[in-house]
């Protein structure tokens, strides 16, 4: 018996080794498959969607006359896990990564590490023509085009028409500010839905406020870890003041410190909902709630939208920016075909088709003139303007560190004060970048 106990551990190790060998062998077989027909296989790593990217892939391969086939690989749900998996593979120079659907904040990091194949200047016009200004900024690293904006996203201000009317405010008016919104919600005893859990969504909110106040979280980004935190300044103070004010006001939703997009949406749809900043998906989600009986038609009819609120009445807001950029892996063995796939997927007709199919807004401005898009998105022109004027999150190879330091120092929102929080944030961020603190 005693011998058995010890041997079982050894046996486990051996089995694991055997499993690893089998895995390695089958991986070899997998990458080898498809080559026997002579047609190159382009592997496209996508973020999960409703299948729209797979359908685009098929269409593009067909349009290329069968000169390549596309193998779509779905990455994990969570953006940071998508990044983790891609970084791990690319650090090992994985040649099977031809095309990647990449979250824009990670473009700089990937490009700086040499993981992305820069696009040829000759292709710039095709890939960036008519792309809205917001996403365009995320496509470059050190003046080189390394990513092709595929779709873009932004947040709008959503409000209950009845609440705004009762409070006597017009959120669609130019010059509607966060302060006015907080006061309006307080007067009607309603809450404002925001994203303030300790996660990337909170960083999106903070960044939008800092950018709208005319500042930035990080300056001199090309200096890498020597970049200078700028969050401790007038713009950071404005952002801290608004967040702290809201968190300590009766207009704060009860679970604000753990609130993400979905929690904000359900608070907004509830009887206490007044205002909310959130992505456009909430509108179709509200429609679905009506269809499934979750909320009444009157609630849906009561929902209005406007551009992201301002920090100062005189300065236009810079709404948040999301979306997906397409990039070509640096170690790809089929760069020609990969480029063709990127060109095809980001073309105007295909981004329109994708917008209607998957519900993700196009990065090219002309898409919003399409009658189909106008019909499906009553708020199309606000989305287009918002994406164009959006303020991207810091474009730095150290994005993860920057974002996490901000999230840690600004959470929970009830403890945020100006200028203490931005100062603490800047000091912590610079220590982290310099390797003096752990995240």
């Amino acid at each position: 018996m005693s011998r058995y106990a010890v041997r079982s551990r050894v046996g486990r190790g051996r089995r694991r080794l055997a499993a690893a060998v089998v895995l390695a062998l089958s991986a070899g077989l997998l990458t080898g498959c498809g080559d026997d027909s002579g047609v190159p296989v382009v592997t496209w790593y996508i973020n999960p969607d409703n299948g729209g990217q797979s359908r685009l892939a098929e269409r593009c391969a067909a349009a290329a006359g069968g000169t390549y086939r596309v193998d779509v690989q779905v990455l994990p749900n969570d953006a940071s896990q998508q990044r983790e998996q891609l970084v791990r593979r690319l650090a090992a120079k994985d040649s099977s990564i031809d095309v990647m659907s990449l979250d824009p904040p990670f473009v700089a990091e990937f490009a700086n590490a040499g993981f992305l194949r820069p696009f040829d200047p000759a292709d710039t016009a095709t890939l960036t023509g008519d792309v809205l200004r917001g996403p365009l900024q995320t496509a470059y690293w050190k003046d080189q085009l390394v990513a092709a904006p595929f779709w873009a996203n932004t947040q709008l201000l959503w409000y209950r028409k009845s609440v705004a009317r009762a409070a006597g405010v017009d959120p669609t008016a130019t010059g509607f500010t966060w302060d006015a919104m907080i006061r309006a919600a307080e007067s009607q005893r309603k809450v404002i839905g925001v994203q303030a859990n300790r996660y990337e969504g909170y960083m999106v909110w903070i960044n939008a406020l800092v950018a709208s106040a005319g500042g930035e979280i990080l300056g001199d980004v090309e200096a890498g870890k020597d970049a200078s935190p700028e969050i401790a300044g007038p713009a950071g103070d404005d952002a801290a003041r608004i967040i702290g004010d809201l968190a300590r006001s009766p207009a704060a939703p009860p679970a604000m410190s753990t609130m993400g997009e979905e929690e904000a949406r359900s608070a907004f749809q509830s009887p206490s909902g007044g205002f909310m900043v959130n992505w456009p998906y909430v509108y179709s989600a509200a429609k679905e709630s009506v269809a499934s009986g979750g909320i009444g038609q009157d609630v849906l009819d009561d929902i209005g939208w406007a551009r992201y609120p301002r920090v100062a009445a005189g300065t236009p807001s810079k709404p948040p920016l999301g979306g997906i950029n397409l990039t070509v892996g640096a170690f790809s063995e089929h760069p020609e075909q990969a480029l063709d796939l990127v060109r095809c997927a980001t073309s105007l007709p295909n981004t329109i088709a994708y917008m209607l199919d998957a519900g993700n807004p196009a990065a090219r401005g002309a898409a919003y003139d399409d009658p189909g898009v106008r019909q499906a998105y009553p708020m199309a022109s606000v989305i287009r303007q918002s994406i164009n004027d959006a303020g991207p999150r810091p474009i730095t190879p150290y994005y993860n560190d920057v974002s996490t330091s901000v999230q840690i120092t600004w959470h929970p929102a009830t403890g945020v004060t100006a200028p203490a929080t931005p100062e603490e944030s800047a000091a912590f961020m610079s220590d982290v970048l310099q390797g003096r603190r752990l995240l």
Partner: protein
Amino acid sequence: MALTEVRVAPPEPAKAELTDRARRERRLGLTLSAPAFLVMVFVTAYPLIYAVVLSLYNYRLTDPAGREFVGLRNYSTVLTDPVWWTDFGTTLIITVVSVAVELVLGFAFAFVMYRIIRGRSLVRTGILIPYGIVTVVSAYIWQFAFQLDSGFVNQWLGLGTFNFFGQRWSALVVIILSEIWKTTPFISLLLLAGLVQVPEEYQEAARVDGATAWQRLRRVTLPNMKAAIMVALLFRTLDAWRIFDNPFIMTRGANDTETLSFLAYRQNVTLVNMGAGSAVSVLLFLTVVVIAFIFVKGFRTDLSQVRGDQ
């Protein structure tokens, strides 16, 4: 260790001169184990040395140009950082509590497996099942059981909307429970191995002398199993100290439930912060060495005992 007060230490072998035969046998042993030893050095020493080298740099995998030599600064950063000490505390709590509970439970299971006459193989298999389940799967099972949306535990205990993963202590309770459920079979196997080595004659002799069951357990069974107990404790402590799967699946390290292995993973894999990450890994390795040293030297654990060659 309450056990050490029972003095049944084996007589110290006299340091006699080695005979020729013994010397030759020893040489044969060394020769036979040499190839395995070399392979082990090759596969473990290289990564280890590489990690030590990396730990002397401030180096991000995704910022190769920013790589700079910083000497031992990463170590001082890690050791003065609250993150390290919070994680150290978490790991310590999980290790101490889970190993202590497992030892008691494992002992009970070992007794059952040893004494049972009818359905012996059924019981033994039943006890061993949790150990056969992949840790990630067991982590999900326990997470689903305690989670607010899918869990049944709150309903059973009438806890309403209490979020087990919402704060540190309750999340640690679930992590530790899952850990105990999963690895008690392992410790009970090792203890069973020790139990069968206790000669039945000793028990009979004690019984003839009128010893109660409790006295026989304390004076006969436990002292004779000391080696097996220590080995089981050593294996489990080292295992528990490197815990990763359960917190990774259940909480992703939220609410101060991150362990040291998780910290090393996050620095190395998520942040690709190879310098600080390697420093954390090296420090984790050193803590493992210290634990092993304490057990082997401090408690005089004789690893050969587990193989039964007395």
